[in-house]
């Protein structure tokens, strides 16, 4: 991939390129006032602080935050709808939600200041991805309770771009709008961006003839292969951004045109990376679960929120000039984490290894874990084509060994590998990618 020489432009250079020492002071000040405020205004936090005998006045350094309990998604659900608001409802000017009205619904409130901050942070996201006030931005996220569409929308307006709230669905109409309105920047989930590319193909639309030059993706994890395809098939630069609805929505972290990790808006969010098992900090740069504390939210501040997203932090300076730490792309979620023979493994790691070996897409596969004589016994079933299966026994054995070796290198634990035919896979695939029989 050739790196586009990016003009160094920022939306809020004071915040994005802040001297690290000044940032540390600012984070401390903001953390101190956030904790004082939640202790005063939110019974949930007051009770939890009291339980461990923590007085917010005692927080003297950012590291003291580690003494505080983590906030889990279920705490937010329990507080439905307004239990965690830190301001009276009349000061809230916007409400978003996740999980609809189901049993896992969460309501997030925003004050006028929160909306302004949010708009600035999504404007940062857009500018980092190469969008300017002269762009025509088509937003294909769903305009509804979820945070994505409105979050990016307000940022794009603040930036001064021309915003098309085309919302989700109706791909042919989206493409027509893209052609007629001369859309230059598309905001979409990666899978929807690919779907639009495919639909264009079916419609006989030539992507090179469009005005489109930037795609900002969000809403779901994507592989470097997906990025490559979006960039190639739509003839654009595609950048990633990281949203956490509970904390704000989009605007938490975003890629710059270097496309080497996502810059965290550290003047508004304090990030920690914890080992998901011990909940202790990982060594600098180590992989673990991302835990985030809001530093400026007025209506809905959250202390040490477990995102369940697994990543690592990159403290190396970025050529773009932003001084913020970068999170590497979110690869997996702790919800998917399995412990096999005492080692944390993720189904996505297995998929990544198979994809590397086999080319563009990973073959169908399934991880089966059993317990034999109190020991974990894990086998990966990998589908191979008819020809490989019958023709070349030696080739088959070699392939099996390669997969086994590469998996062991990636996971740090040896799994059995079994090659199966399509028909066998058809039979077992319905059980999902992971079959854990240890609990049975």
């Amino acid at each position, binding site marked *: 991939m050739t790196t586009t020489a990016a003009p160094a432009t920022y939306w809020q250079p004071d915040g994005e390129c802040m001297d690290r*020492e*000044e940032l540390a*002071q*600012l984070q*401390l*000040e*903001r953390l*101190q*006032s956030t904790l*004082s*405020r939640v202790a005063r205004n939110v019974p949930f936090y007051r009770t939890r602080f009291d339980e461990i005998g923590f007085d917010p*006045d*005692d*927080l*003297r350094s950012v590291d003291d935050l580690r003494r505080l309990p983590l906030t889990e998604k279920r705490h937010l659900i329990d507080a439905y709808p307004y239990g965690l608001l830190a*301001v*009276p409802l*009349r*000061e809230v000017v916007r409400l978003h939600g996740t999980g609809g009205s189901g049993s896992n619904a969460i309501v997030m409130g925003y*004050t*006028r*200041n929160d909306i*302004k*901050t949010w708009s600035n942070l999504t404007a940062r996201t857009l500018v980092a991805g190469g969008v300017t006030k002269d762009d025509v931005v088509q937003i294909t996220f769903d305009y509804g309770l979820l945070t994505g569409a409105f979050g990016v929308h307000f940022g794009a307006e603040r930036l001064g771009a021309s915003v098309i709230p085309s919302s989700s669905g109706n791909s042919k109409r989206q493409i027509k709008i893209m052609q007629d309105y001369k859309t230059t920047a598309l905001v979409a989930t990666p899978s929807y961006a690919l779907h639009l590319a495919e639909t264009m193909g079916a419609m006989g639309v030539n992507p090179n003839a469009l005005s489109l030059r930037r795609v900002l993706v969000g809403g779901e994890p994507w592989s470097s292969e997906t990025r490559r395809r979006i960039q190639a098939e739509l003839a654009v630069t595609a950048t990633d951004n990281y949203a956490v609805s509970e904390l704000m929505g989009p605007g938490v972290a975003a890629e710059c045109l270097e496309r080497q990790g996502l810059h965290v808006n550290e003047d508004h969010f304090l990030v920690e990376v914890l080992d998901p098992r011990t909940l202790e900090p990982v060594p600098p740069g180590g992989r673990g679960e991302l835990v985030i504390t809001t530093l*400026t939210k*007025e209506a809905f501040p959250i202390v040490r929120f477990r995102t369940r997203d697994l990543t690592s932090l990159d403290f190396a300076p970025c050529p773009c000039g932003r001084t913020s730490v970068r999170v590497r792309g979110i690869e997996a979620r702790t919800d998917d984490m399995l412990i096999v023979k005492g080692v944390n493994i993720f189904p996505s790691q297995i998929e990544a290894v198979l994809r590397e070996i086999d080319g563009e897409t990973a073959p169908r596969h399934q991880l089966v874990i059993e317990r034999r004589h109190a020991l974990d016994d894990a086998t990966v079933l990998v589908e191979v084509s008819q020809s490989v299966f019958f023709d070349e026994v030696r080739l088959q054995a070699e392939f099996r060994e390669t997969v086994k070796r590469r998996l062991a290198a990636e996971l740090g634990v040896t799994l059995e590998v079994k090659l199966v035919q399509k028909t066998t896979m058809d039979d077992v695939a319905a059980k999902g990618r992971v079959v854990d029989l240890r609990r049975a």
Partner: protein
Amino acid sequence: MLTIRNLDVAYGAVTVLRRVSLHVNAGQIVALVGANGAGKTTLLKAITGLVRPRGGDVLLDGRSILRAGTERTVALGCSLVPEGRQVFGDMTVRENLLLGAHVQLRRGRRDEVREDLARLFAMFPVLERRERQLAGTLSGGEQQMLAMGRALMARPALLMLDEPSMGLAPLVVKDVFDAIVRISRAGSTVLLVEQNARAALKVAHRGYVLETGRIVLQGTSEELLANQDMQRAYLGRDPGAEMERRPS
């Protein structure tokens, strides 16, 4: 430029400042607002070494000045314009200003002082007009400008102003705050301590709200002016009540 971290100050058993953290960036005006008795003046005294904090640190350009002592703090570039102006009434405006330049004069830098004076008069034409007048005959607003001018003659890196609007008529307050903006534009960094929150935040880049010795709010001036707690407590507005009063 100025960084205060976890500052605790107590007079005997009475805690006056509790874990105060704030910072002032070079070239900015930072407002510290709060009611009478919130601890604002104590904070200035701690910065200038007039009271010894119980804990925490005060850094000027990254170096602790906590144990520097008042004289050294001034020599390092922190100038304080105290509350109530305190100009020398039976001295002329010019004499008052030259007092501010005594360090420079002692070092024999007469030319520099002359230049500083010319620059100052360009910034405060009223002081030039009253150059030979006794300071005691100036109006309150003029005295405030003289006090600020005197502090500027020491070429401070950081100018701290304690309640510059106190006791001044609203129109004069505006003059004084306009002067503060001019001082800032001329390159000085300003820590502005004020009860008049609205006036202070209108000229400041950022602000902190001190309440019974604690920083309870901080942010850009724009954020603070829009903050509803701030409006209720310090800006004389209750947006919620206003909404309810509004006929439907």
